[in-house]
Each structure stands twice: as C-alpha cells, then as structure tokens.
C-alpha cells in the first residue's frame, strides 16, 4: 500500500485556482464564437451572390433603436451584478428586470423586422442566398438572446421568491458573462448585416 506524505512549507499551502464556472463559461463562449464565425464567414462570402431579389439594400434598414436597447442591457446587467455583490438584493432585482425588458424589446425588434420582411418584402429563408444567410445568422443570434432571456428570467423568478442572495454573486457573474457575449456578437452581426452587407 502506498501513501503520499510530503512536507510543505506553509507559504506553499496558499493555493488559489480560478473559479470553475467562470472558466467553463469562457470555454463555452469560445465554442459559440467559433460557431458564429462560421455563419459570419458564410454571410460575408455570399454577399452579392444572390441570383434574385430582394437584395439587402432594398429591404434592410439598420435597427438603431433596438441595437441601443440590447447594448445598454449589458450596462444594466453589469450594475445588477455589482448590486448583488454588495448584497443589495432589491436594487439588484430592479436592474435585472430592466435587463430582461431591454432584451425583450430587442427580440420584439427582430420579430417585427422578420414579419415585415416575410409579409411585405416576400423574403424568406428559401427566397435567395441573402434570405438563407440573413435568417440563419440573425436567427442564430436571436436564439442566443432567447436562451439568455430564459436564464435571466429564471434568476428573476428566484429573486422574486427571495432565494437569491449575495453568495450567488459568482453564479450571476457567470450568467452575465454570457449576456455580455450575446451583446458583443450583436455588434459583429450588426456590422456585417446592416453596414457591410448593404
């Protein structure tokens, strides 16, 4: 039978490793970023290659208002995470709710744009290459917004029931990392679809 018995100097016993939730979220974000980059490459590659209309310049206009909503939700979630670290649960809940509302407004923006494109401009995913790449890329991002909102809402429900406390700050940080990522991806999607793509 073997046993490990080593003598250590006290200084060496201080042993800090990164928090696993944070590391895992960064790894997940790297994987998601790789998925998005493939869709972005496909979008860029197919710009101007559609054989028929409607074309981006005819039907797309940059959704500045909704973009501002989504990007400012990064700020509000940051404030929320700060409040929970200082154990201010009420204020945390307010900022958190504001984040959810801003995210929902953005999602409404995407939905109304899609509605207009489908019913007024006749652009669907099968129409042409622009339709295929546009709905895929924006849809993939929208899907991530929905997943993020589901996560945020879960935390909101727990907050309303009073189970969220200061000790959960680390987990809320991890969730807000994901939300920041969703916002950052939108900057790329916005640039590609509404600026370069037109």
């Amino acid at each position, binding site marked *: *039978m073997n046993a490990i018995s080593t003598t250590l100097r*006290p200084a060496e016993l201080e042993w800090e490793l990164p928090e*696993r939730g944070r590391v895992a979220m960064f790894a997940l974000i790297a994987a998601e970023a790789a998925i998005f980059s493939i869709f972005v490459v496909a979008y860029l590659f197919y710009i101007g290659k559609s054989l028929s209309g409607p074309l981006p310049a005819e039907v797309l206009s940059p959704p500045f208002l909704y973009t501002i909503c989504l990007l400012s939700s990064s700020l509000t979630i940051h404030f929320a995470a700060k409040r929970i670290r200082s154990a201010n649960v009420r204020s945390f809940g307010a900022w958190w709710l504001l984040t959810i509302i801003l995210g929902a407004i953005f999602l409404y923006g995407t939905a109304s744009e899609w509605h207009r494109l489908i019913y007024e401009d006749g652009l669907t995913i099968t129409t042409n290459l622009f339709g295929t790449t546009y709905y895929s890329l924006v849809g993939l991002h929208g899907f991530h917004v929905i997943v993020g909102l589901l996560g945020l809402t879960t935390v909101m429900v727990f907050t309303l029931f009073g189970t969220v406390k200061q000790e959960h700050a680390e987990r809320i940080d991890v969730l807000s990392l994901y939300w920041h990522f969703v916002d950052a991806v939108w900057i790329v999607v916005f640039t590609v679809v509404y600026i370069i793509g037109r």
Partner: protein
Amino acid sequence: MSTESIAWPSTPVESRSFVDRLHEWIATVDHKRLGILYMIYALVFLMIAGIEATVIRIQLIRPHNDFVSPQVFNRLFTMHGTTMIFFVIMPFLFGFANYLMPLMIGARDMAFPRLNAFSFWMTAFGGLLLYFSVVGANGLYGAGNAPDVGWFAYAPLTSRTFSIGHSTDFWTLALLVSGVGSIGTAVNIIATVLCLRCPGMTLAKMPLFAWLNLVMAGLVILCVSPLTAAQMMLVIDRYLGGHFFDTQAGGSAVIWMHFFWVFGHPEVYVLVLPAFAFASEIIPVFSRKPIFGYPVMVGATVAIGFISMSVWAHHMFTVGMSSAANNFFVISTMAIAVPTGIKIFNWLATMWGGKIEFKTPMLFCIAFLFQFLVAGLTGIMQGAAPFDWHLGNSYFVVAHFHYVIVGGILFCFFGAFYYWFPKMSGKMYSETLGKLHFWLFLIGFHLTFDFMHIPGLLGMPRRIYTYEPGRGWDTWNLIVTIGVFFQAAGILVFLGNLIWSYFRGKVAGNDPWDAWTLEWSTNSPPPVYNFASIPEVKSRRPLWDLKHPDDPDWEYE
C-alpha cells in the same frame, strides 16, 4: 506541517440485484464510471466499424469481385469512416481523459459531473442515431438505407436532389448531436485542469497527460464548433430549403469543403494529442527515466495546437485554389512537422540510455514512434501541392491517414489500455496474450497499410467498389486484405485478454509499474472519492518524491 493521503483497503460490497447495478451505471455521474462507459461504447463501435472495414477489404480482394453491391459499398465506407472518427476514437479519448484526468491531478471528480454524464449520453445518442438509419432512414417504406455520402459528405451530393430519403439527415444529426457532447466534455476538461489541480501542482508541474489533454480540449472547442455550424447549415438546406451549398441558387460547394476541413484537420490533432499523452506517460515509466525536455514538450504541444488551425486546405489542393492559397497551406503544413518532430526526438531522448522494459504498453508505444514518423513523412509528401495533385483521392491518401490513425493513434490507445488496465480493473492483464496481440496487429498493420501505398502510387482511386484486372493493382490488394485478418485476430486476442484478465487475472496492486503519477497512489480500482485526502505535490513525479525521500525531484526542478 504534513498531510497524508492514504489508500484505504477496499471493503467488500454487498451484492446488489442486476437492475440496481444497471441503474447505478446509467444514472452515474462518477468520472471513472463514465470513462469506462465511454470505453465500452467505443469498443462496441470498434467492432462494428472493424467488420465494415473487413467487408470492404473482402470486396476488394480481387478484381471484379461482387461480394457486396456498389450501393452497399458506398454505405460501408461512409459508415466505417464516420464511426471510426466520431464513435470510436473520440469516445476512447474522452473516456481516458475522463477516467484519468481527475486521478492524475489529484481531484475527486471532473469539474461538472452532471455535464459529464450529459455529454456522454449525447455522444451515445449520436452513435445510435447514425446506426438507426439502417432501419429508419426510409421510415415506413421498410428497407433501411445507411448514409452513403462519404465521411466528409461533399456538397452538392448531400442536397435533397442527390440524396433522397433520410440517410443523410441521420448522418448530419448524428454528428450534430455528438458534437454537442464533445464540446460539453471539452469545456469540462478545460475547467477540470485549470480549476481542480491539487495543492502544489502548478501548470508547470502537471503530468504531460494533463497538458496534452488540455490542448486537445481547446482544439475540440475551436474545431468541432465549426463542424456543428456547418451541420446546422446542412440541416437548414435540407429541411428549410436554404441555399448554403446549393449550387443551383448561387451557393458554393467549395465552402462546405472549407468548413468541413477547418474541422477535419484540427480533428486529426484532437485524435493524436491524447495518443501523444499516453506515449508521454508510458515511455518514461518503461524507460525508467523522467521525460526528456518537459518544457519543450509543452511548448511543442501548444505550437501544434495553434499551427493545426491554419493548415486545413491542404485537403483541397486538387480543388484548384489560387496559387497564393496553395503556397500558404503548403508552408503551414510543412511548419507543423517541426513541433511534431521535436516531440519524436524528445521521446527518443527519453528512451536513450534508459533501462527499457519491453512490456506490452511499451511495445505499442515504440511501434507508434516509428509508424507515426512514417505517417508524418508521407504526410509531408502530400503536403507539397504538386505532389498532391498526383496523389490526391488515391489509395496513397487512404494509406497515409490510416498510418496516422491506426499506426499512430490506435497503437497508443492499445498501449494505454494495457498500461492502465491494472488501475481500472485491479487485475493484471496477461502479458503473453498482450504480446500476441501486439505481434499479430503489427504484422497485420504493416501488411495492410505499407502495401496500400503502392496501388495508390499506381493510380488506384479511393472509394471504388471494384477494379479491372491487369493494372498492377491485383497482388497489392490481395496482400492488403490478408493483413486485415491478422489485425482482426489481434483485436480478438485483445478483447479476450481484457475479458479473461478481468475475471481471472492476478491482483495487480496499486502500483504495478513502479510509476510516478498520482493515479498510482490510490487503490486499484480507485474508490469513488479517488483520494482519502487530497494529495499535495512538489514536483512532476510526486510518487518518485515519495519513494525516494533522500533524492526528491523537487530539488532539481
């Protein structure tokens, strides 16, 4: 101050009913059990894909053979390739990483045990989905229809027009689902290595196994995700009427190739880095010397990780890219030979002057060294674009990548099975059967894959179901097929050895190899909690320090 981690004597467990035990295995979140599930799963699929390969080779044993029809032949090579990559080697390497990583870094489990179980079942579901196509692909029409688009499924063959029925859907969904599992496991491995190391184990004191698997997990994140994205696009094309790869609507077939090989090449390194990890643990122990050039090994691993992301289009020289692109991918492909060469020199230098014990795991690793070298050399040959224009899509390519995957990777996996079998089962394998397996497989491997290069050079294209006599291919194909039977015999001996040793083998003890890493400090098989108390380490070889208190490693590192 001193702390102790004591291996406790195993207590007899009262016997439970079969259903209880089955439930324990299915609901388990223990990294060791999940690791073993991965391995058993991979062994089952190794059998299936091996039988597919055997049927392929019987069909090609002589010209104008009609053992199987052309349609079945297409399904066989598609299923063989897809299964071997995604449902044999990937589960093997995740199984070993799962089982060994926490033990080697002195942790009680992976960072996220439930994510771990989820990932395994996703991978398992993917494999079942792929094979369900055999009965389910044509749905209610009765006769099934396995995927037949080749393992890289080039567009536009995969479009609705050319791939009728659901066989391609099963292929793409199987890869999508197992890809999610792979990404989950990779996230888990990264978090485990970075966050759960035992006190004292800095990054520079981790076993090389941990380093190589860390880089492997990083590569999985960066390369399986593009594949997942490409599969999403294929699903959009097939189900929602998208045009990503639809050449009729202006889509591009070549962009699928890029997306696939952005995954496909790094995937080779995903598969080979764990093999390197095994070699880096086994060779030092059986040479009785610490690994030569640890920091250089780590550096070379990271370099391989980076360079492997920028070489993918060497699979596409025959497509007709611009000469600037050709040059770039030729040069980057040549560049990756450098860190790989460094590794081979380091393993040789580890053996140099060592007291080498030629046990079965070591035999497999030595064979790996030489075979991987040859595989690398034929790789460089094809990495040169003009040469590849001649060899592309021929049996030379098939011989080359089987040299990598069988001669390099599979040999190391066999070595790893023998090396860690005593730890996982508590029993010693039969050395005689192990050596028999080694020699049978070695002879079979060389008969098959050495001689497969020649019909390739003579112009025999891959994926043809039969060929004309009198082209100089006949004898070579006969030899190649004969080799397959030696390999099959070797594998049967291997399985027999595992099963026989598990029930009848001698008790192995905790540290049969007089090894140096933490997994050998606990019981064989390890208890659920791995270590009675978390160990603390001061060097890369904690058990050496323990066994040689007068001359510990940490005085020199």
